[in-house]
């Protein structure tokens, strides 16, 4: 068996695990590399209420375990390792321990991590009352008072979860009174929760404590006034940053570091795809990451079939090959095909015809600048040596080109 994997997936969150399941189910040799336990950020969300079909009774970790089991049941291999860089052209991933793996395609699903606020005390008191993971740390705050910074879905959802433990949860919101970025359903629930209080138009300027969090300095962004608030814990939910440093320069990223893809999840590098939270996308949820993974895996499969077929039949062929770009949807293509077939057949085993349906294989057509069908491209030793456009395809023209090559 060749050492080259069909698909190498970097990152084992819902996007990567879904891609692994789709890839393996299509009988592709699929390797998923994850630096920790599979599940990604979804594994640190205890209350998982918005994955379709699982209204109650599942948790983030349980759902992610099911994703991983599903992928491995079809034969995907999950390896624990950390990818530190990739070569997009050669489709090689390099790991921290010095090992490297090559694939026909790569799917990047490295995910994102919580953004830090960058204020005094935040780093020093991490694990001492400053947290980014309610599921991990909520227990410690049983009957204590805590502050949550942020007002998006994650902030409001996790605040609600924290009220199951804490005595009180004070949410610090940068917007005017009553304005939250979270979904209306989450807002409504938070406003009704007697353990939740809000402080508006404010942010955290400093986190104070001697070895353990004792309080925060709040700043009102309208008046610039600062006030101190005693608290035992600070949970920060102010968005995420994508873990894409290791692919910089290999695939195009936007100004914030998210991977840019087309609707097939393909990045700026051919055969390198992306899925999940690290991608430029409108919504970052388990279900959208999983959907990305499915699209990426199917696009990767198609890429392999197209590229391998073309490379074997055309690029690595020693005889001249006439590649007829056609599509059965255009009548002219159907009409002209027998003409091309007869002209090439006259050369017996000296030349070869390869038909390429542009509807099925747009990638190769695009690469060679074929915009009209029918078009015939003449390949010899992997290079295009001549071409005939729609109105130029005649037996004499084909003969002239083949004779000149032979």
């Amino acid at each position, binding site marked *: 068996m060749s050492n080259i994997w069909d698909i190498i997936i970097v990152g084992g969150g819902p996007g990567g695990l879904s891609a692994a399941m789709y890839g393996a189910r299509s009988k592709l040799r699929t390797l998923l590399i994850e630096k*920790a*336990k599979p*599940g990604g950020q979804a*594994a*640190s969300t*205890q209350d998982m209420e918005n994955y379709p079909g699982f209204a109650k009774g599942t948790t983030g*970790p349980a759902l992610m375990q099911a994703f991983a089991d599903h992928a491995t049941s079809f034969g995907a291999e999950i390896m624990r390792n950390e990818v530190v860089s990739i070569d997009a052209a050669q489709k090689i991933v390099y790991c921290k321990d010095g090992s490297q793996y090559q694939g026909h395609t790569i799917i990047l699903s490295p995910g994102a991590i919580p953004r830090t606020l960058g204020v005094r005390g935040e*780093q020093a008191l*991490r*694990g*001492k*009352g*400053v*947290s980014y*993971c309610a*599921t*991990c*740390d909520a*227990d*410690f*705050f*049983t009957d204590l008072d805590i502050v949550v910074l942020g007002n998006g879905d994650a902030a409001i959802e996790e605040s609600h979860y924290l009220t199951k433990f804490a005595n009180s949860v004070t949410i610090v919101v940068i917007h005017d009174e009553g304005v939250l970025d979270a979904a209306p359903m989450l807002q409504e629930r938070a406003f009704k929760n007697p353990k939740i209080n809000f402080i508006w138009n404010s942010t955290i300027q400093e986190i104070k404590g001697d*070895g*353990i*969090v004792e309080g925060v300095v709040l700043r009102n962004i309208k008046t610039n006034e600062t006030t101190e608030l005693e608290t*035992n*814990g600070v949970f920060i939910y102010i968005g995420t940053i994508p873990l894409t440093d290791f692919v910089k320069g290999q695939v195009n990223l936007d100004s914030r570091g998210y991977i840019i893809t087309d609707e097939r999840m393909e990045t700026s590098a051919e055969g390198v795809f992306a899925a999940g939270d690290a991608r430029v996308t409108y919504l970052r949820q388990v279900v959208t990451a999983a959907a990305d993974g499915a699209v990426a895996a199917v696009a990767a499969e198609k890429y392999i079939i197209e590229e391998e077929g073309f490379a074997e039949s055309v690029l690595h062929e020693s005889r001249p090959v006439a590649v007829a770009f056609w599509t059965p949807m255009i009548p002219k293509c159907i009409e002209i095909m027998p003409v091309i077939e007869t002209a090439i057949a006259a050369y017996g085993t000296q030349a070869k015809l390869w038909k390429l349906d542009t509807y099925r294989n747009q990638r190769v057509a695009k690469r060679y600048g074929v915009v009209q069908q029918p078009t015939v491209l003449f390949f010899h030793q992997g290079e295009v040596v001549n071409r005939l456009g729609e109105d130029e395809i005649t037996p004499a023209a084909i003969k002239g080109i083949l004779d000149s090559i032979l």
Partner: protein
Amino acid sequence: MFEVHKDNFDQEVLQAPGLVVVDFWGPKCEKCLALMPDFERLAEQYGDKAKFCKLDTSGNRRLAIAQKVMGLPVIAFYKGGEKIAELGPSECTAQGIEAKILELI
């Protein structure tokens, strides 16, 4: 590996001779669970040079808070009844822990 808890922490950690390494973990902390195999491997590798313990904070919340642990995972290093070093949630990696062990033994 020693399982330590509120009733034996004094004896097994604070009063133990030499270096004691304590893995503060919790059953709901995925990062802790992911780290566990690495910690167990290090415990085997360096078991003759230091004592390795794990502490499930879910049943020992007060003890953890008394040790100023309010977030997971934390790997804490004790010697002579004192905490001499600690790796917090952002520093807990297999390499980081091993480097710290080598520094302290």
